[in-house]
């Protein structure tokens, strides 16, 4: 690991000033950043430790019925917050399907939003990678790419965004509050991310010094709480990133879907909102045919970036199954294996 200066600002303003210095990175839970630094992938000159800042670790119910989550709230604390889990159950399920218990105790909300891709070539300094070293090429294009993107990719980069948490958040129109050199602003989480295009090294719209201070979930998103699920296919039962995942939320009244929300994970460089699929569901009845139609719409633009044609059909099936699970109703208690397609056979291996 390359050495670095370590600073521990006392206020958010001091943090932003320090974070705006050349070569600075913010340090929160460190579960992704330290891993990247150990591998020589991230080489910050200075770490700005924000974990000692006060007031950024609260989960608040807002006057309008929404919720505001401080950037330093740990993944496990958010998932197990009774009010949050009841209001936004698909988000809690996504959180608990990610990483391990140890990592969920350390990883923060803000860090999760900004975690880097798990593309193996990005993590290998000996491989060409336009994201890590712009202009060097993309070793994944002709390499091991069965887990890579099928939507929104470019010839320069076919990496995916690895977060589970962000998938239902994007479906539910979550908002990010950002403190920067010119003050506070907020943007939709979906708009935080950039597709790779010709500049895969630029992953978000954040500017130098920008610090995510909070995440907000709108009050309207609570209307989906009785029909919301997250479903995730992994290459092992637990503690693995998504091959494909789907966050689904339905508002059903008297047997009719009034409104649908759908986002996909593991398929693109950002959590992928599927609005055209949502539109096919609104006003119809929840049944296998309408779910399959929505799944077709969600993947209409998909194309393989390599040896990953299978992910497109897999994603369709996961979307249809997540919709069926959501239509059946949010379970009173999360399954033993959150988000797992094998949850229905829980106990089979006892």
């Amino acid at each position, binding site marked *: 690991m390359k050495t670095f200066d370590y600073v521990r600002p006392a206020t958010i303003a001091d943090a932003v000033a320090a974070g705006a210095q050349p070569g600075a990175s913010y340090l929160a839970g460190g579960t992704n950043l330290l891993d990247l630094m150990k591998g020589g992938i991230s080489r910050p000159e200075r770490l700005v430790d924000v974990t000692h800042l006060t007031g950024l670790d609260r989960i608040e119910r807002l006057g309008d019925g929404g919720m505001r989550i401080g950037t330093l709230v740990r993944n496990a604390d958010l998932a197990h917050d009774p009010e949050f889990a009841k209001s936004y159950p698909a988000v809690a399920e996504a959180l608990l399907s990610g990483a391990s*218990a140890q990592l969920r105790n350390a990883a923060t909300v803000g860090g999760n939003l900004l975690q880097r891709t798990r593309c193996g070539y990005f993590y290998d300094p000996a491989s060409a990678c336009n994201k890590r070293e712009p202009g060097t090429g993309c070793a994944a294009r002709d390499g091991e790419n069965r887990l890579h993107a099928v939507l929104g990719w470019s010839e320069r980069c076919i990496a995916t965004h690895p977060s589970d948490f962000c998938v239902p958040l994007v479906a539910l129109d979550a908002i990010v509050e950002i403190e920067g050199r010119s003050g506070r602003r907020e943007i939709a989480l979906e708009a935080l991310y950039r597709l790779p295009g010709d500049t895969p090294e630029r992953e978000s719209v954040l500017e130098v010094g920008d610090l995510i201070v909070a995440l907000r979930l709108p009050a309207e998103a609570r209307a989906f709480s009785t029909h919301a699920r997250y479903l995730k296919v992994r290459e092992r039962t637990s503690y693995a990133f998504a091959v494909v995942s789907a966050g689904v939320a339905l508002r059903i009244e008297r047997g009719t879907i009034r409104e649908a929300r759908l986002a996909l994970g593991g398929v693109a460089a950002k959590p992928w909102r599927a609005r055209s699929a949502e539109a096919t569901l609104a006003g119809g009845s929840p049944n296998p045919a309408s779910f399959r139609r929505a799944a077709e719409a969600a993947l209409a633009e998909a194309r393989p970036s390599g040896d990953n044609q299978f992910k497109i059909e897999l994603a369709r099936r996961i979307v249809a199954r997540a919709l069926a699970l959501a239509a059946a109703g949010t379970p009173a208690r999360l399954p*033993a294996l959150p988000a797992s397609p094998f949850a229905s056979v829980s106990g089979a291996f006892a």
Partner: protein
Amino acid sequence: MSFSISLTVNGVRRDVELDDPRVTLLDLLRERLHLTGSKKGCDRGQCGACTVLVGGRRINSCLALAVSHDGADVLTIEGVARGDALHPVQAAFIAHDGLQCGFCTPGQVMSAIGLINEAQAGDDPERVREAMSGNLCRCGAYAGITEAVLEAQQNLVTASQRRSA
């Protein structure tokens, strides 16, 4: 640059002068404080052998910078027994053959203590397995580990009920 930090480790306050900000909590414990029970397996947060409790919560100490944990309250495997009396989780691992080579065991035990503190798994072996998935065991002692965690949890719950009765 040098950094002075203070931590509580197994109930004892330790003042440490760090000459390098790169030192992880794991390396601090093993190399500076000579508490070598916490193991360095992958050093990348993938195997769980370095699991310790910070503020009562289990984390991977290999992915924690020591300097950032100034003021932390750390519990390691060296701090869980009372003299010769093993912690109930340690005793249950022995009773259920929850180990073979033993390398992953300190991390497994600390993770199990963290799991029991979290009180999310109940008596469901599937929930225990899921909650222990951050601890790898290359000898494959998982069946015994699951039994050990369930029994230790039961013993601890019974003991705490007896105390409050």
